[in-house]
């Protein structure tokens, strides 16, 4: 008996939606197995990791606190990914957003103006876009690979933030800790759900997702991006500028990640620290794929990814597991999704292997 992949005549539309669910289910099942192997009571560990973090309102608030930056970054990345523009530097663009938005708050320490927060968000968008404009410029003018450039800039951004909080922006009253002063109230995002830490970043993220849907599905530019990604030759023949796709893909990613950065600095953190994101920009790559590059999918995938973060923190406190286990689950989730996606274009068929016949087609499967 042998399982063989057989091409489908038409890609399965059902599998496009089933595959992410399958991947999520397999990831949870893997968690179950891993906990058992590590010697935990699997049901108790599973409960502590995936259920306990969200069994009250506060927990849901914490979930939303992570959904906001994840879905923001993923929505921006999805615009680029649709056009085959591989921006993987959202983490760096998020950092620059936090630096620019936070910098504005630090520059006006006495302002209580209601315009400060919108200004910070705008500064964050500009910062994120500026950081993403570097790979866009180097790609369109020098053909430099945007994957490598955007990633290298993530390291540069992290070092730049570290330089600022250890150096010129360090709080003089901070007892020498590498941190800026706390932002004043006017520079802190308001809480939107009493009894939780959920702040205005969540409604902003939802608005950006809605905007993303309108842009991708209802605008001519969004249409051009989708065509460019699905059939590059056709897009070229229709006269859609490839360079424009690169710019839009990267700027969308940078702008959205910049908002996420401001949301972290002006939200739960309330100041600038040497590190302001536990890898949201990288996790958002997975969110974008698991969410099928679609706003609704991205929202659902962000919730799953946020749960993995919360579960990792809970497992660290309650089970003594290192929080690195979150990264393991994140990678596993994307592995399962990529593996399940084969079923969109192929079906599994159980075949009896004919003895002696080893055609190349069969050897490969």
């Amino acid at each position, binding site marked *: 008996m042998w399982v063989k992949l057989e*091409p489908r005549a038409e890609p399965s539309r059902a599998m496009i939606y089933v595959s992410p669910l399958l991947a999520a289910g397999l990831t949870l099942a893997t968690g179950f197995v891993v906990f058992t192997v590590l010697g935990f009571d699997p049901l108790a560990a599973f409960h502590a990791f995936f259920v306990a973090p969200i069994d009250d309102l506060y927990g849901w608030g914490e979930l939303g606190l992570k959904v906001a930056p994840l879905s923001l970054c993923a929505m921006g990345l999805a615009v680029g990914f649709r056009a085959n523009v591989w921006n993987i530097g959202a983490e760096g663009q998020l950092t620059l957003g936090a630096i620019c938005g936070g910098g504005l708050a630090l520059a006006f320490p006495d302002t209580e103006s209601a315009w400060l927060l919108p200004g910070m968000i705008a500064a964050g968008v500009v910062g994120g876009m500026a950081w993403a404009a570097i790979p866009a410029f180097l790609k369109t003018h020098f053909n430099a690979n945007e994957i490598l450039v955007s990633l290298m800039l993530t390291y540069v951004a992290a070092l730049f933030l570290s330089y600022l909080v250890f150096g010129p922006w360090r709080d003089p009253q901070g007892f020498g800790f590498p941190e800026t002063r706390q932002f004043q109230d006017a520079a802190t995002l308001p809480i939107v759900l009493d009894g939780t830490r959920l702040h205005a970043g969540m409604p902003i993220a939802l608005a950006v997702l809605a905007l993303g849907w309108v842009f991708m599905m209802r605008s001519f530019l969004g249409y051009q991006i989708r065509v460019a990604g699905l059939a590059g030759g056709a897009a070229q023949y229709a006269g859609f500028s490839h360079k424009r796709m690169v710019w839009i893909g990267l700027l969308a990613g940078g702008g959205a990640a910049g908002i996420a950065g401001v949301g972290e600095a002006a939200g739960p953190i309330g100041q600038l620290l040497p590190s302001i994101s536990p890898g949201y920009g990288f996790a958002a790559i997975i969110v974008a794929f698991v969410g099928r590059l679609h706003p609704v999918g991205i929202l659902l995938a962000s919730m799953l990814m946020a749960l993995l973060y919360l579960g990792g923190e809970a497992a660290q406190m309650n089970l003594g597991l290192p929080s690195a286990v979150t990264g393991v689950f994140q*990678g596993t989730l994307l592995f399962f999704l990529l593996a399940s996606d084969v079923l969109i274009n192929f079906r599994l068929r159980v075949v009896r292997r004919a003895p002696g016949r080893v055609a190349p087609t069969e050897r490969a499967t």
Partner: protein
Amino acid sequence: MTGLETTVAILVSILGAGTPLVFAALGELIAERSGVLNLGVEGMMLVGAVCGFIAAAETGSPVAAVIVGVLAGAGMALIFGVLTLTLMANQVATGLALTIFGIGVSAYIGIDYTSVALPSISPVHIPGLSDLPLIGPLLFSLDPLIYLSFAALAGVSWFLYRSRAGLVLRGVGESPESAHAIGYPVIRIRYAAVLFGGAMAGLGGVYLSVAYTPMWVEGMTAGRGWIALALVVFATWRPARVLIGAYLFGGVTIVQFHLQGAGVEVAPQLLSMLPYLATIAVLVVISRDINTIRLNSPASLGKTYHPDAH
């Protein structure tokens, strides 16, 4: 120390800083020559580094460390191979997943080894030659893995340009359809190339954690896997140039250390940006001439191929 001795010491440290890149980039070069773009180098290096380190800490044997690190890197590459070659997943997405997975897994399994110290590996002194002035310490009393990197370069160059198998590998990278039509097992050849890439990335990781540092720190590769990917482009897919590029980056890293040590009035964080900025600069200079890239990059690079899908 005289000026000459200092210069030699700096040159030797540049060799050391460049060696992990030589291993990882040569491995990735072979994978890419077969048409497969594996962006998981960073993850494979980290897993190789931590597994090799644990083996060294538990057995005290550098040889065991190398073997375990190489196998761990190849194991990671096998995940990539199954997803991209058998299940035809997108190579870019799978490579990213491999890196994210590798960062998490290595941090997880290395958690008990972060404060463990290893004895340093003693350099190999080649009798007679190592006493020569200048070139003695520079070329004939290095640590054994640096010699292995020279051998790897020679081996990869010979394989690609002088062996029949290397010709087939390059053919697969240029046109998998033609290679398949002639009767070569494209998928198997690509599996072999991907596994070699993983093994070499693992070796680069082991060199870093067991010989160069020697210690294990979470995420210690600090982007070297990505720099290795950039080096392959810099080398325009030719092995000898990998060596030049790797030592160039080794040089940037070491110069930055020495500037920090010499008390230069620049913040250490800004100096630490140099290797990353240098990578971007090099990519821009090399990629600017679109024809050079188009002529030298394997024609099927990054494209999924499967005999059943046609």
